[in-house]
């Protein structure tokens, strides 16, 4: 999911950077003081999750936990994922600096979308649905991130079907694992700190 240096075309790199700048602006505006520790903890989780490697037989992929990040951070998932990806690029050579914008957008947009939709759903649905909603949130965020990555590659002149097939096939086990992790964490948080979940903007308290 970390697109390497030199794969994408100029316009795609530019568009990704623009989307990330916009997302960062929205995320930073939402990130008041009380949220900063939360963002830091999830950025660290995202940063480390990418090191957990899941062999899939035909390929190998790693956890992302972007669904969980979005579920708890909402728009603030953008700065969290950006910082984590920046450090991964600098420390481990995952992805690249020029593709940082595209990679951030690919992973953070599904995080924000799933986080807002499912955060709202978890708040309103009965508590026994929490695990299922969390599962769908975690899995869907992976699938959407894979599709966005494939789209970025397609727009740079690669075949969409090949890219999408390669990426999605490798991420089936990831989607299941992340679904389980997100579901479990969501159930836990719903019980002890339900207010942690991202709420849609029209339902914000205070």
């Amino acid at each position, binding site marked *: 999911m970390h697109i*390497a240096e030199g794969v994408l075309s100029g316009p795609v790199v530019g568009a990704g950077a623009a989307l990330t700048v916009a997302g960062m602006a929205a995320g930073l505006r939402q990130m008041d003081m009380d949220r900063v520790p939360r963002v830091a903890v999830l950025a660290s989780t995202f*940063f480390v999750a990418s090191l957990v*490697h899941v*062999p899939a037989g035909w390929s*190998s992929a790693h956890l992302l936990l972007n669904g969980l990040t979005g579920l708890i951070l909402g728009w603030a998932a953008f700065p969290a994922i950006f910082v984590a990806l920046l450090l991964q690029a600098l420390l481990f050579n995952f992805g690249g600096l020029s593709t940082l914008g595209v990679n951030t957008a690919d992973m953070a947009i599904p995080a924000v979308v799933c986080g807002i939709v499912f955060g709202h759903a978890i708040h309103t649905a009965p508590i026994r649905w929490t695990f299922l909603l969390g599962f769908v949130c975690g899995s869907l965020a992976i699938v959407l991130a894979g599709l966005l990555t494939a789209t970025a590659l397609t727009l740079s002149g690669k075949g969409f079907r090949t890219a999408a097939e390669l990426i999605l096939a490798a991420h089936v086990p990831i989607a299941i694992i992340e679904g389980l992790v997100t579901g479990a964490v969501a159930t836990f948080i719903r019980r002890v700190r339900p207010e942690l979940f991202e709420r849609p903007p029209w339902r914000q308290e205070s």
Partner: protein
Amino acid sequence: MRKPATFMKGCLLLALFWGGAAGAHRVKLFAAGEGDRISGYAYFPGGARAKDCLITVYAPDGAKLGETRTDSKGEFSFRTDRHCDHRLVLDAGDGHRTEFTVSADELGPGLPVGGTDAPVTPPTIRPLGRRSAAAAPSPAPPGDLGKLLDRILARRLRPLEERLDRYEDRVRWHDVIGGIGYILGIAGLYVLLKSGRRSPAN
């Protein structure tokens, strides 16, 4: 948020212990020249070999020399007829891409020199046990001996090069801990800057 934070820390620690190996964040290429043959393999560090991937070979001047594909074991091998640096570019098709350069020194001296303006530099092997005339290039040993030495050295050094290559991209845990430290530091700095900006207004 005390309890969830503790839970997250638990997840983090679990990930640290579980994640002994790095996954497919990137693809790596290893190649070595021996005589007129360049062979190697492509792999995802800590994970599987990269199967059926296109490798494009370029000369130093950017000219495309040819293409090859990795087989079901992620290995490839091809013959070259040019004595120049070979830049191998692998594209896994899913956004992973990497490069590896096989230097001309690794290839057999018998090959014609690639590129029209490249100077011909025959390999010079200094004879052992002679201290005089260190500056003067000693004549190359007879072609056969030179080729033999090249082949033996290439074969002996290859495992070492492979190990070095793999060692280089091992994810080191102090980097991981460092990364978490950076994130916490950035968060702290952010709070500091924000509170600093707010306090004059108060």
